[in-house]
């Protein structure tokens, strides 16, 4: 029993270490999701040019891909959330994108307070 | 000339830019040539210009690197060719007469002489 507890603690510790390392990428992904939502908001309101929107989609997706591939724990809850965000179409509704942002923000806040 | 006066002259001269009689930059005072004997005052004979004058002022490894990239040419500017010394050393003659500006003149041949307003 004592040995199992130690192994579990070690695993949890390793996971939380990995999560701590991934915190900067979670923040980046959260921010990129929010930027993406903001761009799509402005696109729907006709406040930005089509060229700008396409360009921003390209660069935001590129940055999100980089953040996702830098994760040490891609199968974690936040890893899956980021993958789902990556899978969204470029012109996804802003609210849909923001739902991912909200979840990532919650995970980010939990990790920061831990 | 007092010893401390000579040292001050050297430190004031070293690394000043050289400007010829046509107002063109011709290099930097990289070293100075002094003449004298033990117990007698030192006299400034000439200014030395070029990467060849850096030896003694740079570590050996840096000199080897410099020799590979910039060569080790050395041009001697006699004291009599100097007009004034201030924020720069101003010469009495065009740089070419003293063997200065050789590289500048060579590189000038590589560039097209048109298109600039």
């Amino acid at each position, binding site marked *: 029993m004592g040995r199992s507890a130690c192994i579990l603690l070690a695993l949890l510790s390793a996971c939380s270490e990995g999560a701590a390392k991934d*915190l*900067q990428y979670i*923040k*980046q992904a*959260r*921010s*990129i999701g*929010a*930027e993406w*939502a*903001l*761009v799509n908001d*402005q696109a729907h309101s*006709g*406040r*930005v*040019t089509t*060229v*700008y929107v*396409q*360009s*921003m989609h390209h*660069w*935001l997706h590129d*940055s999100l891909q*980089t953040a996702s591939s830098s994760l040490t724990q891609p199968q974690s809850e936040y890893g899956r959330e980021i993958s789902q965000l990556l899978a969204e179409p470029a012109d996804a509704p802003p609210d849909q994108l923001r739902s991912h*942002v909200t979840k990532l*923000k919650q995970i980010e806040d939990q990790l*920061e307070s831990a | 000339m007092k010893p401390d006066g000579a040292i001050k002259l050297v430190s004031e001269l*070293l*690394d*000043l*830019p*050289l400007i010829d009689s046509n107002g*063109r*930059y*011709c*290099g*930097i005072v*990289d070293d100075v040539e002094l003449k004298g004997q033990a117990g007698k005052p030192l006299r400034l004979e000439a200014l030395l*210009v070029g990467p060849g004058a*850096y030896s003694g*002022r*740079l*570590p050996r490894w*840096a000199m080897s690197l410099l020799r590979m990239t910039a060569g080790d040419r050395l041009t001697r500017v006699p004291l009599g060719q100097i007009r004034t010394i201030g*924020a*720069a050393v101003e010469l009495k003659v065009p740089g070419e007469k003293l063997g200065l500006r050789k*590289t*500048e003149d060579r*590189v*000038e041949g*590589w*560039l*097209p*002489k048109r*298109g*600039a*307003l």
Partner: protein
Amino acid sequence: MNPLELTLGIMTAVGGFVDISELVFAARAGSTFGFALIWVFAFSTVGIVVFSEMSGRVAAVAKQPVFNLMRHRLGLELGLVTLVASVISNLITCAAEIGGVALMLNYLLGLSYVLMAVAMTIALIVSIWVLPFKWIERAYGLLGLFMIVFAAALFANHAPWTRIAGGLVPQVPRGLTTKEMLSFGYFCVAIVSAVMFPYEVYFYSSGGIEEEWGPKDILTNRLTSILGMGLGSLLAIAILANSAILFGPANVDPAIPGTAALEAAIPFGKWGLILALLGMFFAVAGAAVETCLANAYSIAQFFGWAWGRHKKPWEAPRFTLTWIILFLAALAIVLTGVDVMTLVEFAVLFSILVLPLTYLPLLLLSGDRKFMGRYANGAVTKWLGWFYFWIVCIAAVAALPLYFLTSGGNG
């Protein structure tokens, strides 16, 4: 003093103040810490005004640019170390600017980033070859005034002026965790570096020689430094404040430079966006020119070559070849695929490490009565100069640890 020339000089300095690093860090500072870092921009601007004024005065009175006299002051060995360090720092900065310009064209026209980086490098080389110095400086600087749209956006975004004014008071926000405190420290160092980039002083001083400044231009130099850079910094502060209003509450920490253009798009629509992108394009292009020429000036002046764009390119052949090679070297860095934001981080880091070596000889030279006569530093300038010198030394020591501890301000 010609009022028209003075006005053009000030406006050029205003339009040319913001570069890619200030753009990025102003936007991130606003979204992360609200208005709390405004005072750091103002504080750093005073620093660059002090040293720019010094460098312009040295150029006008000693009739020699900073790097000529720097080698004389520091000696060959330390002078070479300073030269190599500043060339590396300015080269990385130039690469960041070229990458930034290519990005702006991509946002505006949708054309390939790599193609635009190559095309812009060629365009910049051609523009420096063809145009005389004054036109080079004025063209990019005055067109950079499109950036005024960010100041206009601040009004349209219903800026909380009391809180913005409050941001001018030196402060550290309350309730920060240790990590957030370290991040705040990193942003302070990064902003000091971005505003006080070494290339600004080299370019300004050499520009004074290019324009044949003399003692009669001392007042012009002073006014251009104070008003040009002071007003220019207001544009950077406007970007920060807009970011605090629009991006902070939306959980946006701008990951790419193009996001900043939304600050003008949100209130003004497509025209606001286009003006913002044009302003960013010209300001960053101007910075690319300045960083490259600053490097070429430094190298040519250190070795005593003929230099200057007041001459035809073939009249200063080694100088000309040097700036062309430097542009191509910066382009090569961009073409390795390194992200522009990463280049900006490295530019800021390298620059802060070089700053003490840059400013110390300038401080000593401008205070030396043998060179400067009655135009040597007065008591106020001397005090401010030494104060800011020690600030940049502290920032230089703190930069690397803060960068690694905060993952470049990302927490």
